């Protein structure tokens, strides 16, 4: 027998224990997104959150067909609430009074259910729209700054720093008041314009780190152009945190926008209701016992935001390749 070769198996009948491959770990190849989807599906809270968010979106999209809102219609003011001789209608009628499942607001005595259901559309549109615009803008600026560095980076980041040092609430309020004109589309642009710096900073640090990764060097060594490196190599790796951040910022924008509306500087309640502007005069009625006026629009916000937060967290866990189980 050749001393340098591997020993031959003994010829005494084959063992019936199976071949080595029977006991090897099964390898099924999944790409990044399939893996992420699988992890997301397993995450109970993420599914619950997505369900919640989609329910609110559903209400916002289909609700107005069931409960259409007419901005011109103001009901004839009643003195007492229907079915009561003591409840002043001016303070708002409680839930489950005739024809008003969630009750009415004070003063104008508008039906709360109609308002809340219709308010969802604009609130959600502003939230999602502003978030997406801000994400695109922030990614472009942050990506260029992080990848090319140098003076592009310095200028961009100084701008971002200054913008981020401004008291965001005040600035948004100011711009909404100055340019908003009560029109939700302009308000959405205002929010987008003031949200992108945060994401730009995130994207810049992502690109900075990814740029130093070995696979970028490898791509450059083969002669890949800058543009291709950015789009084909770096961006897919950066996309996960960007998605997570964008999702979570939808929630932040919805909340901030609601406050601006509440102050009266946002969307004009005479044109369209939003969850925020329904609340504008609610505080004064609380003291006379009107708990529903403030509760239901806020509850709508809370449920939406809760859903988004669960979903965002689930996305973060699902998309992070290094997540701990």
């Amino acid at each position, binding site marked *: 027998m050749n001393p340098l070769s591997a020993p031959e198996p003994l010829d005494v009948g084959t063992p019936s224990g199976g071949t080595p491959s029977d006991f090897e770990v099964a390898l099924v190849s999944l790409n990044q997104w399939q893996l992420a989807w699988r992890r997301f599906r397993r995450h109970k809270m993420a599914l619950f959150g997505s369900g919640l968010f989609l329910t609110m979106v559903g209400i916002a999209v289909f609700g107005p067909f069931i409960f259409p809102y007419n901005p011109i219609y103001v009901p004839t003011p009643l003195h007492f609430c229907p079915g009561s001789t003591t409840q002043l209608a001016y303070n708002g009628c409680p839930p489950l009074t005739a024809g008003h499942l969630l009750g009415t607001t004070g003063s104008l005595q508008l039906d709360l259910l109609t308002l809340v259901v219709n308010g969802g559309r604009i609130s959600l549109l502003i939230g999602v729209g502003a978030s997406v615009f801000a994400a695109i803008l922030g990614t472009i600026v942050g990506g260029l700054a992080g990848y090319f560095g140098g003076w592009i980076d310095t200028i961009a980041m100084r701008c971002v720093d*200054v913008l981020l040092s*401004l008291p965001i609430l*005040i600035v948004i309020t100011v711009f909404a008041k100055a340019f908003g004109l009560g029109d939700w589309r302009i308000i959405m642009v205002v929010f987008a314009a003031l949200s992108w710096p945060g994401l730009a900073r995130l994207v810049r640090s992502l690109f900075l780190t990814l740029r130093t990764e070995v696979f970028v060097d490898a791509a450059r060594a083969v002669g890949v152009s800058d543009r291709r490196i950015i789009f084909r190599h770096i961006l897919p790796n950066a996309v996960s945190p960007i998605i997570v951040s964008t999702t979570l910022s939808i929630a932040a924008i919805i909340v901030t926008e609601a406050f601006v509306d509440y102050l009266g500087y946002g969307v004009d309640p005479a044109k369209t209701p939003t969850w925020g502007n329904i609340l504008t005069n609610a505080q004064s009625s609380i003291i006379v016992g009107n708990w529903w006026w403030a509760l239901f629009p806020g509850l709508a*916000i*809370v449920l939406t935001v809760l859903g988004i937060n669960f979903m965002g967290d689930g996305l973060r866990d699902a998309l992070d390749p290094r997540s701990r189980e």
Partner: protein
Amino acid sequence: MIKYTIRRCIQAVPVLILITILLFFMMRVQGNPVDRFAQNPKVTAAQIAAFEHRWGLDQPLPIQYCDWIGLCGDKPPVINALPAAIGGGDNGVLHGDFGFSTFDGRPVIDIIAQRALPTIILMTTAYIIWITVAILAGVYAAVKRYSLFDSGLTIFNYVGYSLPTFWLGLMLITLFAVPPLRWFPASGMNDSYTTPGFGTDAYWAFFGSNPLFAIFDLGRHLVLPVITLVMVSIAGDSRFVRSSMLDSLNQDYVKTARAKGVPERRVILRHALRNALLPVITNIGLELPVLFSGAIVTETIFAWPGMGRQLIESLGHADYPVLMGVLLITSTFVVMANLLADIMYAVVDPRVKYD
């Protein structure tokens, strides 16, 4: 390190100036102090013109800014910027003159001084409670992972983080400040039936003679606003502390400490916590501006006579001297907070070195 701090402070100045320029133009663009007379039929055009002239509103915006900051005045620009003692001007922010309110004519500095203390009280109380609760809860949840407390904290975190601050304030008022439960007051800093207005001389006299009652009253008024203010922050931060602590507990050096025979409590509090707090400390520094935003909201809801509420009120009147004064102070505060966060990071983590 000292050099780095000084350098950052010097760099902060042009940033602040830029911020004030931006804010000034924003304030003036979004409203004119004379707007509040627009609906009043008794105010004649001549009176409005006189008002505008008196406040310098008829001058070009850059000149108005220059006046406000103290570069322009009686003397030529460059000279005017110097301190009055050596022949410079005496107007504008550079010389400590923050102007007067277009709404009620009072000096802006007086207004700020009066409003500063309530905000400081609110924010300091909130800050202490926030940090303490967030760290304690986060650490305990991390150490007793999978326990009931941990699950409860996670739920609380999600829900608490999702509550809009202003709505939470409204709900707390609805629950606790109106009948049937009237545990806490719905607004204000003091019970107007029993104590004089906060900050007035009468109040301090009252405070001197009945300190316990005054403090108790103040405390009672602080409860709801502080809960409103810190809810979101505690919810977010305790999660962060928890995950940071979990990360730290998974590190090899914790295993080494255990292998040395270090008692478990010491392992957690000395070895793991010290490392876990590093990112938490920077985070806390960076969240101070967020706390101030929250204070603006809280003060509005609870009619707390602080700087945040002053901002919202002045915004309504387009009272730009007051707005600029408050914003300058808060922007300085934000910039300093960021710098402090960076310095703290270098102080507590020996691996970080600035030069």
